[in-house]
């Protein structure tokens, strides 16, 4: 491949693998928003807790990385359930804005918990080999390839789950018309709990993957902030939108790092947000957001 194009593809591919992780986390975000109308501001902290937990099992307890990965998933299911049961269920019926404020409080609680247990220096996983794989001239480390593989796999699983599995359809039904869903015997509480579990699980996975790439530190919480433009970009309540939004934000971040960074340092951190603002000016519901179906 030609040098210029190769340079471009290098950033696109790295962006896509980072973006696929964002997409995964964005999916958790959208899921909670769709079924409960709550913006979970603690999503990034879920990610951080998951990463620390897995890191600690691997490094401090010397477990095999994949074993720690699996245990972390179980742990995040429990974490999701606990948060739903202890923090959110008592607030059912309260104004949405208070519940969102509570998730903001949750970010500090989880952050404090992490610092208390694990301290706040940045640590590395170092489990994947460092030498890159050569894909037609584009060089990607194993880590990026794995991240992309795992994320895309999970994303497809979730898309199929929501389309075909009965539980997935029940969840969408609750998101669509809560009372009607209840009138048909669907347990809204169970659906809420499931949403929080899935959100916690995908965040943990995202946290472990990003943690492998960038090191595990308290800063991982900010990934939650990065996912926000992805989610809004996709329209907040669209699962497909979240996936595409995540990928777009990842690619934009890396392309701007590659091409604009020499002129405007650290532009990659804000570039996705700039594009987000532009998109929202043209399409206020995001790319895939549902404007209510209205029959007159």
């Amino acid at each position: 491949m030609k040098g210029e194009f190769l340079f471009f593809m290098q950033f696109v591919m790295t962006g896509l693998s980072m973006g696929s992780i964002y997409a995964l986390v964005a999916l958790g975000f959208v899921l909670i928003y769709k079924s409960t109308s709550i913006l979970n501001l603690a999503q990034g902290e879920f990610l951080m807790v998951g990463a620390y937990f897995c890191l600690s099992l691997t490094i401090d307890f010397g477990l095999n990385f994949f074993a720690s990965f699996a245990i972390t998933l179980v742990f995040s299911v429990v974490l999701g359930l606990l948060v739903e049961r202890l923090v959110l269920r008592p607030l059912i019926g309260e104004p949405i804005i208070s519940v969102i404020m509570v998730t903001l409080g949750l970010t500090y609680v989880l952050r404090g918990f992490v610092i208390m247990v694990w301290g706040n220096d940045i640590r590395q996983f170092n489990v994947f080999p460092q030498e890159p794989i050569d894909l037609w001239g584009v060089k990607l480390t194993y880590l990026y390839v794995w991240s992309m593989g795992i994320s895309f796999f999970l994303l497809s699983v979730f898309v199929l789950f929501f389309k075909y599995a009965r539980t997935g359809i029940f969840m969408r039904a609750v998101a669509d018309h809560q009372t009607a869903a209840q009138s048909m015997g669907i347990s809204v509480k169970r659906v809420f709990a499931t949403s929080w579990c899935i959100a916690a699980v995908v965040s943990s996975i995202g946290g472990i993957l990003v943690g492998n790439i960038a090191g595990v530190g308290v800063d991982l919480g900010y990934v939650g902030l990065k996912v926000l433009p992805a989610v809004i970009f996709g329209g907040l309540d669209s699962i497909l939108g979240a996936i595409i939004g995540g990928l777009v934000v990842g690619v934009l971040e890396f392309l701007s790092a590659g091409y604009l960074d020499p002129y405007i340092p650290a532009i990659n951190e804000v570039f996705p947000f700039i594009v987000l603002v532009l998109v929202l000016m043209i399409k206020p519901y995001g790319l895939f957001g549902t404007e209510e179906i209205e029959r007159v």
Partner: protein
Amino acid sequence: MLAVNNIEVIYDDVILVLKGLSLTVEEGKIVALLGANGAGKTTTLKAVSGLLKVENGEVTDGTIEFMGERIDNKAPEEIVSRGIFQVMEGRCVFENLTVHENLVAATRTLKSRKEIQARYDMVFHYFPHLKSLRGRLAGYLSGGEQQMLVISRAMMARTRLMLLDEPSLGLSPLLVSEIFSILKRLNQEQKMTILLVEQNAHLALSIAEHGYVMENGKIVLDDVVDKLRENEDIKMFYLGLTEVGTKRSYRDTKFYKRRKRWLA
């Protein structure tokens, strides 16, 4: 099958809506529940289906029994699994789900794939028109198609008693009579018991065996349908007829209504 005994329903701890309401529905029957706007018909259905709780309402007195067991103030999930299914007024389809997904969403209480498939086929047997719309988003269906869909959802669950709230609302007379004849068939062929709330008394009485009239949170009249049709007050208020069978203007009826209430 269903026995509502003297229930009192309060919303938000203060608003008393049902004041000692009693009614019974026998297995295999269609029973009509008539009454003016705001009489508490929908509230009665919600008390039975447990949806009252969702809206901050509560049965504070009296009992509701289904097949001999108390079900008052139980959770809607539990009541649905016993075979009571409320088809809410206003055709609450899941707009962003397809017709197929709307039907699947009603199968929470079913376990076996075989039963789901059998019920799915039964739906299309009674509503063949829906079959071609399976992949369509329910939000884009016409009002009549949506009404068929919400009735079909009740058929997907293992429903023995359907609580049907104003199915004729906003539909053309022709379509309504089609839907009502399907309801009658469901009742006869599938032994579906129906408690039917309707504004259109004429229609409701045409398929029901027994009727209740409620006003202000109480039952003020109940009888077999033939007797109800003969009742002068029913003719006056709900069928829009006077003694000689000629239509009176709505304004007269309304005036008269203000003077004379069911309860002296």
